[in-house]
């Protein structure tokens, strides 16, 4: 009982921290991605003792700046609502991650452990319920701020979210029909390890609809009318400053990560490693470790070598040594790993590792798989944001109501007909 509560609490903290720490990384990815798409270098000046980490330090500097700025609330704002709106926006973005399964259930010493906060039997509807509540953050923010631009942004966001939620909901009905369950864990299990059984192959139309509607739900660029910098200043968060603004900002990126995780889970097999099922992996875990360990170490060695080869005396100060600071330890660590592997192999210890170590290794591989898929979709979101221009308002409404919803209904009808006559 006590153990259960402790494990649940640790799970909540670990997953929350995982999502939260990826926000600055994503902001960095966004800035660098924008820069390379626009043919410039992007952020590369902020530094701690000459270490710039290719611009990641900028996110840290941003956080410090936002913490120390003055919080301003104009006189006519309605205070309680003005203060609570960013909290709602951020809270909703974070709690949605609760139903995402990060790995298969791990049986360890007779105890079953799942890296998932709650496996609700209404899992996916919970995601939609949360995202439909999320619009209140924007709506209240825009209204409470008592500004014209804020109100316009809030109205736009409400109209957009309502329109695209319908398409979002319709697009996944076909998935329920295929897997026969609303649990995300079941949907992942149902897809299996073979790529052509993943839902983006079995349900291509649903995938396109879901992806498009997700852009609208996260207010990302082809659908960023609620912010619309060129039209209504900054939309619903025009009047916000300091950490209150930062909460909206973090909420947006958290939404992006959670959306990517959910799309990876629903359409790309979640934690399933492509072509190698969990059962196959379990049978051959010895070979996987024997071959995977030196391969990983070797890649690390090459990466460290590549970094170190970038060493040049360009600035004549500490910045010059940055590639060495990261390249040389990486190389040393890789060599250490290789030596440890050789040592273990010569004593024959890698031949038969205990069962629990193999299970933990599979667990980590699955976790890495789902995170890699999610990062791919984050990069995709960023790529699209800096490639496509914003929709006009009537185009947005036409696309939502006259194209996506009929297509969604047709997809449901066709899928259920095929299922019925099979």
């Amino acid at each position, binding site marked *: 009982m006590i153990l259960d509560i402790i494990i649940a609490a640790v799970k909540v903290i670990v997953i929350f921290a995982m999502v939260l720490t990826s926000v600055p990384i994503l902001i960095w990815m966004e800035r660098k991605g924008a820069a390379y798409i626009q043919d410039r270098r992007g952020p590369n000046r902020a530094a701690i003792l000459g270490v710039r980490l290719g611009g990641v330090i900028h996110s840290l500097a941003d956080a410090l700046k936002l913490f120390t700025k003055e919080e301003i609330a104009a006189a006519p704002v309605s205070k309680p609502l003005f203060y609570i709106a960013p909290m709602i926006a951020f809270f909703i973005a974070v709690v949605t991650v609760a139903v995402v399964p990060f790995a298969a259930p791990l049986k360890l010493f007779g105890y079953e452990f799942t890296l998932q906060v709650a496996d609700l039997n*209404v899992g996916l509807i919970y995601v939609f*319920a949360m995202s*439909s509540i999320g619009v209140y953050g924007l*709506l*209240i923010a825009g209204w409470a701020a008592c500004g014209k631009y804020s109100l316009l942004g809030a109205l736009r966001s409400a*109209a957009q979210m309502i329109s695209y*939620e319908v398409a979002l909901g319709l697009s996944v009905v076909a998935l329920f029909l295929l897997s026969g369950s609303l649990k995300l864990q079941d949907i992942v299990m149902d897809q299996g390890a073979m790529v052509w059984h993943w839902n983006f192959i079995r349900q291509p139309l649903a995938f396109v609809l879901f992806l498009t509607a997700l852009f609208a739900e996260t207010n990302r660029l082809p659908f960023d009318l609620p912010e619309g910098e060129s039209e209504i200043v900054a939309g619903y968060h025009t009047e916000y400053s300091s950490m209150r603004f930062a909460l909206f900002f973090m909420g947006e990126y958290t939404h992006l990560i959670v959306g990517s995780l959910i799309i990876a889970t629903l359409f790309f097999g979640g934690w399933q490693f492509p072509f190698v099922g969990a059962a196959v992996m379990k049978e051959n875990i010895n070979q996987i470790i024997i071959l995977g360990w030196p391969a990983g170490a070797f890649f690390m060695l090459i990466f460290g070598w590549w970094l170190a080869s970038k060493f040049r005396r360009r600035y004549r100060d500490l910045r010059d040594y940055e590639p060495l600071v990261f390249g040389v330890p990486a190389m040393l660590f890789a060599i250490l790993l290789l030596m440890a592997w050789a040592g273990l192999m010569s004593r024959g210890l890698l031949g038969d590792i205990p069962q629990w170590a193999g299970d933990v290794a599979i667990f980590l591989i699955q976790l890495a798989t789902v995170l890699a898929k999610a990062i791919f979709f984050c990069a995709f979101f960023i790529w699209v944001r800096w490639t496509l221009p914003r929709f006009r308002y009537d185009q947005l409404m036409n696309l939502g109501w006259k194209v996506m919803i009929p297509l969604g209904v047709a997809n449901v009808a066709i899928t259920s007909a095929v299922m019925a006559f099979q």
Partner: protein
Amino acid sequence: METVLFYFLAAITVVSALLVITRANPISSALMLVVCFLATAGIFAMLGAMFIAVIQVLLYAGAIMVLFIFVIMLIQTDAGDLKRRAITFGKILGAVAAVYLAIILGIAAWRPPFIEAPQAGEAFLLPATMGSQLLTTYILPFEILSVLLLIAIVGAVVLAKKKI
């Protein structure tokens, strides 16, 4: 633990429902209604009816109330324009306290057979069983409700559009 949680959610439901009718500002009223719906969803979840709880949040709190607030924002009435209310929150609270005292006194005198709230049946736990119940046992009320909603939609379109 469960009793505490129930009283907490019930208190939120009642207080927010009262605030809906006492706030002068229509936006605050509508937001309080949202809080009321969320607390009700919590009570549903406590009874084990997860599906109904989530649908309550999704449809009532998430969709219908957003439209309400959307319309109120478009109309944009100032709180000052509205008529001052004769009934204030304090008066309602006093009246409720008086009624509550009367009920407590009444219960003290008369003891009906109280029963514990039953957990929701198996049919309400899973979306699949719930759906098949709706389309078999409760087909008539379900269809009547659908027709009612259809009439409401058609009526709204007729009222809103001058020329169809």
